[in-house]
């Protein structure tokens, strides 16, 4: 505290400038993107509700939420990386590797289930650590470093599993991690997603970790010159994102009752799309956890609704692509206006 008082004493006598204030940004602008995402979600819900009576039934809603869980958890973790102006392409296949490792620990090695789950999540942390070392210490561009990791993780998942699924049939209560219902009618996977979201929100908006994440994304060199050990923090950020990947891997395996080594490719892009739709900037410096959650929900509501309307799968991709383009378009619009 003494510091600011020192500064205060020093500065009080500094000569006054004028008093005109710089123009202020209205708060609505800061929330435009997120409000837009939220509005889009509501509009989609209303539209599909009007189009099909089957849409707004509890069983369908909880199905949509369950389908969101894995992508949602991945997206939440990668929001941190994207907020630093980085990117993580390894989360899809990384998640698969975590699923497979959970299977190896629980089924092949017969470790107690909670321990196997913990090790599965830590596998994600190791993937994140390697990404972080490549990006923060060796200085590889995040795109390249995580592209490499994406391929490595995919290869390892196939090699370790012997290219065949690992079934958790004999692991007691493993499937209830995702499919049990601590809250009646709501699959635990959804609960996990919301808990993870709450944790991510807390980390990003309330802690020094989040503040530094934003600072690095906003201007890494300025952050470094301010005495922030940016390399160490970037390493930590990638590890945290990796742990989220691990959680997604466990939830995925539990939901399917098996670790499927062939899955995973493409999940990273869906997760990144959810983050962008939610208003986190690819240029860094601006991240929103609620936005990411809404973005992930928009994607699965859209896919579910189109399916209910019996629209071909091929067209579903087209629609999702358009939504992503629109989201980014509104984002650039927002940036232009506030510039």
């Amino acid at each position, binding site marked *: 505290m*003494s*510091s*600011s008082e*020192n*500064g*205060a*004493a*020093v*500065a*009080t*006598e*500094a*000569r*006054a*400038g*004028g*008093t*005109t*204030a*710089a*123009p*202020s*940004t209205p708060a609505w602008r800061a929330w435009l993107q997120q409000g837009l995402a939220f509005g889009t979600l509501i509009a989609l819900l209303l539209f599909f509700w009007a189009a099909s009576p089957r849409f707004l039934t509890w069983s369908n809603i909880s199905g949509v939420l369950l389908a969101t869980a894995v992508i949602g958890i991945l997206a939440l973790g990668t929001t941190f990386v994207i907020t630093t102006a980085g990117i993580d392409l390894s989360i899809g296949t990384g998640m698969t590797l975590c699923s497979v490792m959970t299977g190896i620990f629980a089924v092949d090695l017969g470790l107690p289930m909670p321990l196997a789950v913990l090790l599965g999540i830590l596998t994600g942390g190791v993937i994140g650590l390697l990404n972080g070392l490549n990006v923060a210490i060796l200085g590889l561009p995040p795109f390249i470093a995580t592209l490499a990791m994406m391929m490595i993780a995919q290869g390892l998942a196939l090699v370790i599993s012997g290219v065949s699924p690992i079934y958790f049939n004999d692991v007691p209560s493993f499937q209830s991690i995702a499919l049990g219902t601590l809250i009646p009618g709501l699959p635990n996977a959804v609960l996990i997603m919301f808990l993870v979201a709450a944790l991510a929100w807390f980390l990003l908006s*309330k*802690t*020094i*970790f*989040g*503040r*530094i994440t*934003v*600072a690095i994304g*906003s*201007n890494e*060199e*300025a*952050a*470094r*010159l*301010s*005495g*922030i*050990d940016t*390399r160490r923090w970037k390493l930590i950020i990638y590890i945290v994102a990796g742990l989220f990947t691990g959680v997604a891997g466990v939830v995925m395996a539990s939901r399917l009752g098996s670790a499927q080594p062939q899955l995973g490719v493409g999940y990273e892009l869906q997760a990144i799309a959810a983050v962008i739709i939610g208003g986190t900037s690819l240029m860094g*410096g*601006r991240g929103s956890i609620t936005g990411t959650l809404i973005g992930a929900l928009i994607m699965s509501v859209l896919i579910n609704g189109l399916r209910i309307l019996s629209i071909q799968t091929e067209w579903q991709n087209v629609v999702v692509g358009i939504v992503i383009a629109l989201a980014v378009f509104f984002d650039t619009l927002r940036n232009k206006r506030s510039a």
Partner: protein
Amino acid sequence: MTVEPPLLEVRGISKSFPGVKALQGVEFQLDAGEVLVLVGENGAGKSTLMKILSGIYARDEGTIAVDGREVDITGPADAQELGISIIHQEMNLMPDLTVAQNIYLGREPRRGLMLDEKALNRQAAALLGDLGIQLDPRTKVSTLTVAAQQMVEIAKALSVDARVLIMDEPTSALTDTEVETLFGLIESLRASGTGIIYISHRMEELKRLADRVTVLRDGQYIGSLDRDEIDVPTIIEMMVGRTIDTGSKPEPFDTAGRDVVLKVDGLSTRTLLKDVGFELHRGEILGFAGLMGAGRTETARAIIGADPSTSGRVEINGRVARIRQPADAVRHGIGYLSEDRKSLGLLLEQSVTTNTIAASLGRFSGLLGIMNDRRARRVAQQHVEDLRTRTPNVEQPVKLLSGGNQQKVVIAKWLVRDCDILIFDEPTRGIDVGAKEEIYTLLQKLAATGTSIIVISSELPEVLRLSHRIVVMANGRITGTLASEDATQNSIMDLATRFDAAEGAAA
């Protein structure tokens, strides 16, 4: 002369943005072969006015006439057609393209579908020759000095047959010799009948160049002075609405008996610095003078560990400090305020609060790293009031503040950190006269309360005004140290050019 209508005449221009009246009733006129210097503090409306003239903004009211004929400028293409060309403060060149490719970007000579590089280079060489700029059109822009890049910008602006050339603080990144070259070019443009609007903060330039001065303040037209009426105190008064003293020197400072807080020995880097050593005493303001590229910024960056050094020893309060990255320097109580606020000093999109606490995040977080935002806002608010930072509130993104106010936010960041040693690199670059005075006063008060300060500055009056002692560098070496009472602009320039004669001639 008086019968001919002016080349460019602007009357009653007003422009509003939501919530702000940026310009109100602004007028000026510019004749062919005349240099009009436009002055005003940051936020006075100079840039807005220039953007209206170059077609980036549309005016709300007022008239613009070229050769006495009223015109409507609705886009950059209109401005170009009317012969109005602008050189922005920030460089707009493509670093990976050559000089010629940059000058004729989008207007390249072609043969069929193919670009005709030969014709391009020939054309550029002819243009550069006409302007007396000695540059090879095939040089990549990224390899040029800032000054040379500026010349390319000017050539580019003139390549479209500009009759009116607008220059926005063109000398802010130039050394004195480079400034001379630029002024020579301006003289020859003036002689050839080009009308020049020159935006500047520097009074010496205004005296040298101006045929006429127009002053803006807070978006209002304050007045114009013709060449024979130009008088610096009057102009400064018009700009800031109050009087300011210039040319004073600091109180005498006796280094004997003062603690040495920072001692640097034998500091060298791979590229530039050679055996740099000096001492900084408690409460001292130590100026660093030298030409661009002399190694002043490099010295600062090597000391704080932002760039690697090949050898050298840094002692803080008599103890050797191992500094390998800026975080180590900050831990040892050294803060560095970069010359490039926007890209190295600030988190532009973030709030005043976030920027204010950016160097002390650990002090504002508690258990589990939870941020104490209320305390952060209170401290930020306190510093906004103490430093009289003009901002509507502490949640304002700093990119919306003017240069002077941004600098105050950077200063607040280091005040909050409570550093013993502060290194200010060009503390008043791009800052208007009024705010400069505030920053000078602030530095002096800081020193008086025991903070030790290094001021790196390319403006000699600034170095002389603030420094108790002045270290002069040339070519990566320290060529001399002057006590305040012995230092003059001449004695500094003598040392600054001492090891530098060969290079000076080449440039």
